[in-house]
């Protein structure tokens, strides 16, 4: 298969940016998770129900 077949030029820099931006989001979410865990461990913050979804930004949509 050939590479991306779009009539619109996505722009090389713009594509790289999406990876970096996505990467930053992943780092931010991971950091937030660890921060919450730390707060919980230090008993500064009370337990939150596990259904809360802090990893929202990094997750795909698999619901129908």
């Amino acid at each position, binding site marked *: 298969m050939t590479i991306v077949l779009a*009539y619109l030029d996505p722009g090389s820099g713009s594509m790289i940016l999406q990876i970096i931006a996505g990467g930053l989001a992943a780092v931010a979410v991971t950091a937030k998770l660890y921060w919450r865990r730390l707060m919980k461990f230090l008993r500064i913050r009370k337990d939150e129900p596990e259904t809360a979804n802090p990893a929202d930004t990094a997750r795909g949509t698999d*619901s129908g």
Partner: protein
Amino acid sequence: MSAPDTHTPSPAGLEPGSFRDPESRVFYAGDEVYRALSPDGLADFEALAESGLLEDERLVHTEQAGDGAPALHDVLVHKPAAVLRHERIPFVSYPYEWTFSMLKDAALVQLDLLLAALDRDLVLKDSTPYNVQFKGARPVFVDIGSFERLREGEPWVGYRQFCMLYLYPLLLLSLKGVPFQPWLRGSIDGITPSQMRGLLSFRDRFRRGIFTNVFLHARLERRYADRPDQVKEEVRRVFKKELFVANVRKMRRLVERLDWNPPEGVWTAYGERNTYTDDDARRKDDFVREVARSRDWGLVWDIGCNNGRYSRIAAEGARTVVALDADQGPVELLYRDLRAEGDERILPLTMNLADPSPGLGWRGLERRSPADRGKPDLVLALALVHHMSISANVPVRELVDWFASLGSALVVEFPTREDPMVRKLLAPKREGLHPDYELDFFERSLGEAFEVERSERLESGTRVLYFARPKRG
């Protein structure tokens, strides 16, 4: 030279603004709007139909044209595999005629449909606001050909275009207070990342989303400009759908937070809409209402609509009212109200009649002037003539000629030289200027091109209303 034939968009009824995507092309036959699809385009359309997303009310109503479809063989490079029929949008408008909230709402529709598409393993192949139209105050996505099947490892191809035509224009007004409309009218592709970076200050880079989408974007664009092949392959290897979805969601949150409000004075003036108590205003309402209800007007233009008072009255007897004003402020507030009411008949747009939208793009035909998009059946020009004639220096006779060129019926108001507003406009001008701004000269000019059916001098004596029909031949 003979009369310009700009009303025939292009040979064989092709929509002159629909040539960029080789998989689909819009054309007209009779009163209908059609779209020819290539074999690939048809496969994409079938995937869209199967996903159920085609039924979404944010999409323009579309069906396969079947056997009754007009045969237009040279629309695409190869013989079209199928033809679609689209619902017709009453009046086409462009992003440089929209207010802040209109562009923002169009952006949100674009992003929401992209998310919905990704959910079904589809994608939107571009992100241009020209793919969105307004039915009254409701945004409708019209480019069905933009949906295609998602390919493995494909990044958000329309991301750069989204920035250039949606995000940057919104930022320009939201952060800098600079209206985006002249910029979008000035370039059909919008504002580039490096141009946008040049418009922002050092402090701006610490605002949400700015560093990544503007500063970093501009920098990476420069850095990788000469290595497209290498980059595409690398991106394809690492890019995942999850990343795509995350980026679109992040963009949505960013756009959702952007805000702009008209200056204080606009709110005050707008709020006075329903507090007119004087006799003049009541009689003006009645005059307009009587004309509006006298027959079924298809398309009405309310030029100089201000807070939309008369657009609303006109809508009582029209299918579509285009409410135009040079000032974005009241149009923005009118849009917000109409949106809250769920209106689908009044289309508010910002446009200066002394400098209206021209033909733009390839051959100057991709985007058209207002009259080329559909001539009105009735024009309302209330509290307009003095602004055009005195502030914009358009001679009275030229203005009347222009009204006549539309071929529509006309409700026009003439404030005499004694009117307080006219005095205010004349005050800074040299004595003796605008000798043509006289009631009898206006009436003579009007009478040459129109049959005046009714006129009424309002109580205050400084304003006269006319209802006129164009003379035949």
